[in-house]
């Protein structure tokens, strides 16, 4: 069984991050993420990482949930780390047979890894603290082009449609004895089944769209949540942005 991508599973908790106005939250966090990933200094990146962890703890999202999601990132980033460590030209500090690890490789690798982890960790206090449809509405309010907002919303919804269909076909295939191997037959079958999966998801998506329409959906995302930006939100947003700017000021003055 595949797991649903429920990034907003803990959206119903209560924390300063949950109470943060969605629009201000999105802008402040995007600013912070963008600033951290271009910091050239490892030391400053570590400060950024700690700040990210601080915001994560503030959001009360269970750590186990976040760690589960970090698995993927770790896989990708760490493989890059290893590749860089061995291939980056520079001062050699260790050698295995014909492969050698360089100090510059390790430094660049660490820099990249920590930046990436900071960015991913920040995603949780940012979008894990509001429901996905709230985020969609916030994006709409932020004047993101309507076609993109709608595509984001429908794609999100259809991902579940797809995964459901995928799961059903998978169950049906297994119950008739199919096993995924690397034989030509298996690959061709997978190809056919994927085509079918696609057609069926398309048709189902069409029906879902009809159902939404027949319940009054007109293209403007609506939710029960009303946005109201208060002084507290401004203060929080300005301090996050201020922190991001100060990271760069420090790194500029660092030797």
């Amino acid at each position, binding site marked *: 069984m*595949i797991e649903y991508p429920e*990034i907003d599973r803990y959206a119903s908790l209560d924390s300063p991050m949950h109470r943060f106005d969605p629009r201000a939250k999105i802008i402040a966090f*995007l600013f912070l*993420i*963008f600033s951290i*990933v*271009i910091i050239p200094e490892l030391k400053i990146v570590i400060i950024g990482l700690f700040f990210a962890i601080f915001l994560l703890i503030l959001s009360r999202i269970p750590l186990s949930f976040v760690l589960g*999601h*970090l698995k*993927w*990132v770790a896989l*990708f*980033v760490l493989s*890059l780390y290893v*590749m*860089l460590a*061995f*291939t*980056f*030209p520079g001062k050699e500090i260790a050698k295995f047979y014909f492969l050698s690890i360089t100090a510059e*490789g390790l430094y*660049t690798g660490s820099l*990249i890894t*920590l930046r*990436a982890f*900071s*960015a*991913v960790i920040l*995603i949780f206090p940012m*979008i894990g603290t509001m429901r996905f449809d709230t985020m969609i509405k916030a994006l709409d309010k932020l004047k993101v*082009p309507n*076609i*993109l907002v*709608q*595509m*984001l919303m*429908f*794609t999100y*919804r*259809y*991902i579940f449609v*797809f995964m459901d269909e*995928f799961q059903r076909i998978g169950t049906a295939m297994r119950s008739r004895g199919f096993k*995924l*191997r*690397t034989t030509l037959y298996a*690959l061709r079958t*997978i*190809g*056919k089944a*994927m*085509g079918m999966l*696609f*057609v069926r*998801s*398309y048709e189902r*998506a069409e029906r*879902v*769209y009809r159902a939404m329409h027949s319940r009054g959906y007109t*293209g403007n995302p609506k939710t029960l949540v009303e946005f109201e930006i208060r002084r507290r939100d401004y203060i929080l947003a300005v301090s996050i942005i201020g922190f991001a700017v100060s990271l760069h000021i420090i790194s500029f003055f660092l030797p």
Partner: protein
Amino acid sequence: MVHISDGVLSLPVLAAGWAITIALMAAAICWSKRRRTSAEEIPKLSVVTAAFFVASLIHIPVGPTSVHLILSGLVGVILGILAYPAIFIGLVLQFFLFQHGGITTIGINTVVMGVPALISYGIFKAGNKLGFSRKGVSEGIFGAIAGGLAVALAVLFLVICLLTTGKGFSGVASLVAVAHIPIILIEAAVVGSVVAFLVKVKPELIPLGGARK
């Protein structure tokens, strides 16, 4: 690995990625508005985008490891110009939901995958001009070319990005390129067969296919 994660690339590359992406998206959206892409096309756009998203979760065993599908060529063939915003949305969701790739790199990643998708569309369109058989065979062949090429070009762009970020990345770049060779082949086969299948079963999805009109 086609998605570059946060923190790898230098500021100029990131900025250039966003600039190109915003420009192309604006163009695509203007174009669709002019053609009055009505509300009814949103589901089609979104389903294809969702397929693009879910495809990256299907792992096919290759020797000791497994690779996942990319399908950017298929998106190009089906959606045409609008493939670009579709790939953008797909990447946004891949990061938001599964943390694949990165958030600051969405701009450049969209260029890396989206521009080849547009080129694939061009090739498929050219094939259409030559005349399709309506039985799915020639569509399938062109679909395969489009699918394989989309990945090959994406890898090329990726390598260029890595090389411009720093000299030290040449080793990584060549490893990445080699690792993608089997993916190009698998992708060509899968996209080709899916296109051939769709032409037969759901022709309205492949507007360029000969089966309609």
